[in-house]
């Protein structure tokens, strides 16, 4: 009963992901396209939730939908040109430029279909079995991250730190240093 319901929800969510992803690349308005992408993110998060990874689901919303996409929309909102930019893009991208990409991605698509049909429907295969609702707790993830994967955590922290320092260095201009003196006076 519950498995049936989860299956139905999974299929509906997967359909939402496909449709909104398609709309993301076909929408003419940039902000609309980004909003469809947000819908895709939210639906992916629901898939994570159905699979029992509720921590990953929450992070998917907080980081992707809540932070990265907000920044994307923030920037496009400021640079939004409406019809003018649309005409410019029409001039830049015509159908002939996308033929190679279309060919390659359709190859990949057929390969995927082929693989899915050839894969035996064994019970150990997570993709084939019904979505499991075994819940992974935050504690499990924490012990994994700071146990066997602690080196990866440290490396990604170093990468983020260096990215942060680079960003500060690039954005250092007379204006920002002026703000900093204001902060010192605060």
């Amino acid at each position: 009963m519950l498995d049936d319901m989860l299956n139905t929800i999974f299929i509906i969510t997967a359909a939402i992901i496909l449709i909104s992803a398609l709309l993301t690349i076909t929408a003419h308005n940039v902000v609309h396209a980004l909003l469809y992408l947000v819908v895709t993110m939210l639906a992916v998060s629901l898939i994570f939730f159905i699979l029992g990874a509720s921590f990953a689901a929450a992070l998917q919303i907080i980081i992707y939908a809540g932070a990265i996409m907000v920044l994307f929309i923030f920037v496009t909102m400021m640079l939004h040109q409406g019809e003018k930019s649309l005409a410019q893009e029409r001039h830049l991208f015509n159908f002939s430029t996308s033929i190679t990409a279309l060919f390659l991605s359709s190859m990949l698509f057929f390969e995927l279909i082929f693989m899915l049909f050839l894969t035996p429907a064994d019970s150990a295969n997570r993709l084939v079995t019904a979505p499991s609702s075994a819940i992974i707790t935050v504690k499990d993830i924490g012990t994994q991250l700071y146990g066997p994967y602690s080196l990866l955590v440290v490396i990604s922290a170093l990468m983020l730190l260096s990215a942060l320092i680079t960003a500060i260095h690039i954005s250092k201009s007379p204006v920002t240093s002026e703000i900093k003196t204001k902060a010192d006076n605060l």
Partner: protein
Amino acid sequence: MDSWLTPLIILVVLLLLGAWSIWLERRVLALWQDRLGPNRVGPFGLLQVVADMIKIFTKEDWVPPFADKVLFIISPMIVMIMTLLGFAIIPFAPNIQIAQFDHALLFLLAISSLSVYSIMLAGFSSNSKYALLGAMRTAAQMISYEVFMGLALMGVVILADDFSLSAIVAAQADVWFICYQPLGFVLFFIAGIAEIHRAPFDLPEAETEIVAGFHTEYSSMKFGMFFIGEYLGVILISSLITTLYFGGWQGPFLPPLLWFILKTGFFILFFILLRAAIPRPRYDQLMVFAWYILLPLSLLNLLVTGAVKLSLLG
């Protein structure tokens, strides 16, 4: 009680409270400023809200012809939906809670990060300069203050060893977390005010600078939804403060629900007092305050809490 009845009652009560806290704010502000406030409609002016609602419903619901129509209509809905969703995880009393799951606090952070969209889309779809300026300010403000909100909450999570709000309330049976986390409480409170952009952090709608900010073009009930959404946000943050730092529904003698209402009511009044007492900072001051003062403080709070907890565990 039926499983659908409790959520329905909570929803109706919240919507009524959201509307009536407008009356409360006007009355209490007037009291503190030696005025009378709305006192004509009904006893103590209590029916002022009903009059306001009739007025707001019968006004012309105008969608500007230059606006992005779909987004323009969706964005006030988002703010209401997101704020009301936030209440789903609040334990009002031992058995009165809509949804109970492990990652309640993460759910809350996700909800609060999604509510940025309502204001950004309102500003963008209005297609007007003031609305866009207001939306940009909000987006920057909310993204910045979300960081400290999350970091301040982590102190509570470390103490309670759990992300679920009922476990956090249970962990405060002996001592309220405000005793262990005074700095965390102050940080969360400031971030909370900025997150629902109430005065003194109401720069997105600073009427002396940018008309009404992101909702300049809104009229009738669409404006009403932004308005009530803001008051619902005040109630949400107040009840979160109660739950996270002041022991939730726990307290002697009185029934749990009454304790919860009393504590939450106190913080709602405090929000109103803040509006009356503190002037609005400048926009760059707000951002500098966030990144130069609050970020180091919240990191320090997290570090010290973790260190003390680890040293006590041995």
